[in-house]
């Protein structure tokens, strides 16, 4: 049993949490900021901002080389953050935790470095229809380069993965790469089960956990995945930092992605040898302040308790589904699972015939921040039979008032576009 996410109180005090986020007290054209776009990027608590400021004000220096005090402090800051992240996701060692720019870079690292070395023409990679483009386009690029075959797990009308044909799809496949939680539908997938299926078929398992890690206790060892990728800015941390977790075995079998300083043991005119994990994958001066911020974000969430975070979001998800259905009936279509416990707080929806762009433009008049578009998941949009959706998404600082504000803004949009 790992130590991931077992602390904290049972219930979130949202009113108190809101005070930790300076941006939430901002006035938007005379109305309060109603932020419902955390699946896109989350807001940052004061403790994250302070940790980054503190690093720059007190300890800024390059890492892993200086002999002076502040250089040592900077090294301790980034490596300390790595340890916090390791505990947060239940990884066995800091060696398993690679810092990247974001989840997209982590996926590209896997596809380019591991994929190029271990895959050959005709090898099959299994994806799902509900993947983010970050888990699609790198594979398309590899397919163009070496001719791998992509297979797709379809999505049911309820927004779940249709695993009826999984054995056939996995037959002979080398990779299963899939999301732990859909950024469009909120669907939580059966990660451990899918990983086991992949391993039974002789494939490695890669998990895009960008939407999962911020919202649900994540234990990478319980999942058993070979690689897990996620990003910092969706989990209360800054932009510019992501994480690639890998098992020791697979990271050792993966050649370095980028070359340069930091990642070498020795360089001569004839060649180079790379250094050990995890720095083998961290060429160049890393994102030190961002790592510090990510560490502070994980500590903040641990302080709240990830079980309490999840419980809050399940309850608010139930309230959201109920409110939108009661107030708008057949005029609203909410994609994804109808059972709150089967999903995260992500709601892609259509309202009347109002285009998502027009809908969210009216929302903006009411201070309500909701994303419109394809959410970097065009194959899923096609499966749903739409070009775009409006998407509202929740986090620890949202409450029922925010959902009521969303519903009021929908009313206003309905009146504005009543033809």
């Amino acid at each position, binding site marked *: 049993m790992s130590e991931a996410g077992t602390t904290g109180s049972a219930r979130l005090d949202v009113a108190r949490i809101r005070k930790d986020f300076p941006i939430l007290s901002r006035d938007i*054209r005379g109305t309060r900021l109603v932020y419902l776009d955390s699946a896109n990027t989350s807001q940052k608590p004061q403790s994250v901002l302070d940790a980054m400021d503190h690093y720059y004000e007190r300890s800024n220096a390059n890492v892993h080389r200086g002999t002076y005090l502040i250089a040592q402090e900077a090294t301790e800051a980034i490596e300390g953050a790595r340890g916090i992240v390791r505990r947060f996701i239940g990884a066995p060692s800091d060696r398993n935790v690679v810092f990247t720019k974001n989840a997209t870079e982590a996926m590209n690292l896997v596809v380019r470095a591991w994929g190029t070395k271990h895959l050959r023409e005709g090898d099959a990679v299994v994806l799902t229809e509900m993947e983010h483009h970050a888990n699609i386009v790198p594979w398309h690029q590899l397919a163009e380069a070496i001719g791998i075959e992509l297979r797709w797990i379809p999505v049911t009308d309820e927004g779940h993965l249709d695993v009826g044909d999984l054995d056939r799809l996995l037959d002979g496949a080398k990779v299963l790469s899939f999301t732990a939680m859909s950024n469009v539908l909120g669907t939580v997938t059966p990660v451990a089960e899918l990983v086991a299926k992949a391993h039974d078929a002789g494939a490695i398992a890669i998990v895009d956990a960008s939407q999962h890690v911020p919202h649900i206790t994540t234990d990478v060892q319980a999942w058993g995945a070979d690689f897990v990728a996620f990003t910092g800015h969706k989990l209360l941390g800054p932009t510019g930092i992501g994480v690639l977790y890998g098992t020791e075995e697979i990271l050792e079998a993966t050649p370095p992605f980028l070359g340069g300083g930091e990642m070498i043991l020795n360089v001569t005119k004839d060649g180079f040898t790379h250094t050990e994990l995890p720095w083998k994958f961290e060429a160049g001066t890393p994102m030190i302040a961002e790592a510090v911020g990510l560490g502070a974000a994980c500590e903040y969430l641990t302080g709240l308790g990830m079980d309490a975070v999840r419980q809050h979001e399940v309850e608010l998800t139930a309230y959201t589904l109920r409110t939108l259905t009661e107030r708008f009936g057949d005029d609203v279509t909410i994609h994804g699972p109808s059972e709150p416990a089967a999903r995260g707080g992500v709601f892609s929806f259509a309202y009347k015939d109002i*285009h*998502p*762009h*027009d809908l969210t*433009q*009216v929302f903006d*008049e009411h201070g309500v921040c909701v994303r*419109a*578009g*394809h959410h970097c998941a*065009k194959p899923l*949009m096609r499966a749903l039979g739409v*070009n*775009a959706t409006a998407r509202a998404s929740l986090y620890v600082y949202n409450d029922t008032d925010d959902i009521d504000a969303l519903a009021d803004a929908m009313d206003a949009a309905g009146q*504005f*576009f009543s*033809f």
Partner: protein
Amino acid sequence: MPGLEDLYREIILDHYRSPRNKGELESPPATRVEGFNPLCGDEIVVYVDVEDDTVKDIRIGGQGCSISQSSASMMSAAVKGKSLAEVKGLTKAFKAMMSIHEQSLDGEGEGLEESGESGIDPSEIADVPEEVKLGDLEALRGVVKFPVRIKCATLSWNTLAQGIDEATAG
């Protein structure tokens, strides 16, 4: 502070409700071109029939928001029956309107410096013929105050330009 009424003028909503020249043309002889707005996933299809250096007929397909749909509708009405030279002048004038900085529109401080989001290259709007009248299309002027929507308004125009290029190539 721009408000919704700056964006959604009545004439825009009218074209959105009742789009002109909606449909398809047989292609060939007409040229069929698809345009995509990668930001929002909107897709537009322009069918253009060019004969004797004139836009003989045009139809619009696909789906999109009120701004992209109304812009396409107004464009179709404006270019139908016009010579290619006139269409070119109209396109330039429209794009020039879409690249006016908010600052020069309001004379207030809150403007955009360079409207990098418009995706309009300065060379596309050089030497706008003075005699060009935008007519109903003027209603889309307010879009400039909402920079992310500029690409909605220009989508059909870029697609038409591509269609005319293809129709007149070779």
